[in-house]
């Protein structure tokens, strides 16, 4: 038949069927509702810090509790995996180096870091909330 057991959805790590997708959707909606409140907190506030940590730790726990041991082999040959690791690793290293170059460059307005580029966008509560959703999704993929 050529299909793996469990009809695993390749797009979402650890999600196998319709029921799982519904649960994932409900869970994500709950986290995003909480995120609306978290992203409305003042900078450096205790409530904001506790909110981000609580959301992050709850997400890690949820991801680990619902994790399945389904090692899906990537459809890439081993040589491709090595080449890809070099390419992606090199790109990540370049990004880190450039972030450090800009971080130590002055003035900040002339050497913007990723954070300082995002700062004006972060003035919008809606943008912060969407960014929170992206942060959650990335954390989910790490924790699974």
């Amino acid at each position, binding site marked *: 038949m050529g299909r793996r057991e469990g009809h695993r959805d390749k797009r979402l*790590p650890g999600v196998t069927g319709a029921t799982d997708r519904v649960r994932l959707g409900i869970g994500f909606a709950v986290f995003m509702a909480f995120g609306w409140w*978290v*992203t409305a*907190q003042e*900078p*450096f*506030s205790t409530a*904001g*810090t506790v909110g*981000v*940590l609580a*959301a*992050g*730790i709850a997400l*890690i726990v949820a991801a680990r509790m619902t994790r399945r041991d389904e090692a899906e082999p*990537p*459809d*890439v*040959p081993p040589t*491709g*995996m090595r*080449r*890809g*690791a070099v*390419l*992606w690793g090199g*790109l990540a290293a*370049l*990004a880190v180096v*450039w972030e450090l170059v*800009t971080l130590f*460059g002055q003035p900040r*307005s*002339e*050497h*913007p870091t*990723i*954070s300082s*580029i*995002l*700062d004006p966008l*972060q*003035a919008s509560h809606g943008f*912060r909330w969407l*960014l*929170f959703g992206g*942060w959650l999704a*990335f*954390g989910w*993929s*790490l*924790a*699974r």
Partner: protein
Amino acid sequence: MAGVRLVAREVSARTATFVVWGVLAGAAVALQAVATTTHRIPTIGQVIRSVVRNPIVRAVSLVAWLWVGWHLFVRSSR
């Protein structure tokens, strides 16, 4: 005249910074597109999943991820 040169240099520094960020972002999009369409190299998701299979790497990554969350949503000025 010196002031004009100084302004030109500062503008070019800012522009160069954005250009480098743009090139890096473009390279990432291009790599992802090649990975998705050809399957000759892994996507960023496949690389991350293979890396975080190691529990120590996963733990360090999750701590870094929590810090990024704090940095983005608590520390950032707005």
